[in-house]
């Protein structure tokens, strides 16, 4: 008896899947999908690089005030970072720092200089002297800029723009003192506003009213959903790590506050140095604001 072949009978060999079979079609679709993603990735990466180069020279005026930025600068900034990942934003800060500038793109001042050139620095806080990396000291020009910059950062997505199924989010909000000017500069508002400007004052009031109403509505919505503004919990911190862009914002984002004591040093972001000088205030306000905009 002839030895039996250990190989399987090749029954399929005669009818190989034709080019149009669903099997190869699926493979082709997958390949195409990946090719598209890679293409989009290249485009986004180039855009981000160009945006960072542009923002290296921001703000456009050397005596700009980061608390009251020119509407044109603010709009451009918001536009340019819409497709940023948090890591891209970190890169922006890094590149500005290398150019000796404050990490916040709307600030024209130089970054803070550490008192000495030592790698570790001693910083006086209410809790006593703390040891901090020199690098983390030299990121911002001031606490205020740190706050404004981080306010932007928490709104950015961890997910690369080419992977975001919901597309890029709407708008990144800024922390500004001259909000009225900026609201007027919003494209949305411009569409509704008549081109004639004889009643500027009234209009400004109008706009401010509209925005206040919007904020109220958002706050109501948040309440309705049973969201209670609470302190920064571990769960909330984890929420921060994930993509916050794809969800509906229930309340207008609120500024993150610098952490208050060494007990909260885990909150330090972006090398922002903990400085406890607010111990007199009741601290639940800060905790609230920090995560108020996150869906519960």
């Amino acid at each position: 008896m002839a030895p039996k072949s250990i190989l399987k009978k090749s029954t399929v060999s005669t009818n190989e899947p034709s080019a149009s079979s669903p099997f190869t079609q699926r493979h082709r679709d997958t390949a195409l999908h990946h090719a598209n993603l890679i293409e989009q990735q290249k485009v986004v990466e180039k855009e981000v690089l160009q945006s960072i180069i542009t923002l290296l020279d921001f703000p456009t005026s050397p005596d700009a005030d980061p608390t009251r930025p020119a509407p044109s600068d603010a709009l451009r900034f918001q536009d340019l970072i819409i497709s940023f990942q948090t890591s891209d934003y970190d890169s922006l800060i890094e590149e500005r720092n290398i150019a000796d500038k404050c990490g916040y793109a709307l600030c024209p001042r130089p970054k803070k200089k550490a008192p000495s050139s030592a790698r570790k620095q001693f910083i006086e806080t209410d809790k006593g002297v703390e040891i901090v990396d020199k690098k983390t000291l030299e990121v911002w020009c001031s606490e205020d800029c740190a706050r404004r910059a981080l306010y932007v950062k928490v709104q950015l997505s961890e997910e690369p723009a080419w992977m975001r199924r919901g597309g890029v989010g709407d708008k990144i909000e800024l922390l500004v003192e001259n909000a009225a000017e900026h609201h007027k500069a919003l494209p949305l508002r411009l569409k509704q506003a008549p081109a004639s400007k004889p009643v500027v004052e009234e209009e400004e009031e109008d706009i401010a009213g509209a925005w206040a109403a919007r904020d109220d509505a958002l706050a109501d919505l948040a309440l309705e959903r049973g969201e209670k503004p609470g302190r920064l919990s571990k769960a909330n911190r984890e929420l921060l790590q994930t993509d916050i862009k794809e969800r509906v914002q229930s309340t207008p984002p609120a500024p993150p506050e610098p952490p208050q004591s060494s007990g909260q040093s885990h909150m330090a972001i972006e090398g922002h140095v903990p400085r406890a000088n607010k111990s007199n205030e009741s601290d639940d306000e800060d905790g609230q604001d920090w995560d108020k905009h996150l869906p519960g």
Partner: protein
Amino acid sequence: MDDRNNISPAMIRMWRVYRTVKEMCMDRGYEMLQEDTEIPLEVFNARFSKEDGEPDRTRMHFSCQPTEAMLAKYSDPPTAKIPHPVPQIGTIWVEFNSDENVGLKQLRDYMQHLVNGNFYSGIMICSKPMTGMALRLLRGSAGIEEGPKGGVEVFVEQDLLVNITKHELVPKHVLLSKEEKQQLLERYRLRETQLPRIQVTDPVAKYLGLRRGQVVKIIRKSETAGRYASYRWAI
């Protein structure tokens, strides 16, 4: 004075890097005197050390011209229409960056300097790796508006402490001219895509400054076959 003990470790380190860079330029085909690649430590120390004994990188820059042989290698084969093709190589500017952190600012300033000085290409040697964004700019820099025609290459000092091509296990790599490449493909009736490949990021490819599409001949010594050559297409 010429006792090695009086020379700082940083200075000795920098001397090694400097010599490797000079050798690299010579091996690529730039005009370079052998003795330039063999600068003694004492001479180097006297020329480039600061008062505190640390290397003064800002004074170490230099430029070099391609030799006739190199110009020929980087030219298209002459045709009836174009009897004197323009070589795709030119003066190179080599700079040693002394900044602690190198990012977009330094890279763009460097590119601007190359363009202003009419340099064909440039090599920047940094003490630490550049930022991710600077690398991103570098990857896209060959052939874009911003930089010089021949692009910019960046090395980290650490990678130049020894000359890898002098290691006994590294076979000799020789760049083929465009004409030689054509002859090779014709002789074996090959398309270039059929050749085995070498990444332009390969350490030897980086050392030689290989560009995508070029072909290198790799000459190995074999106990059984004497010397044998293989070819690789840079991608």
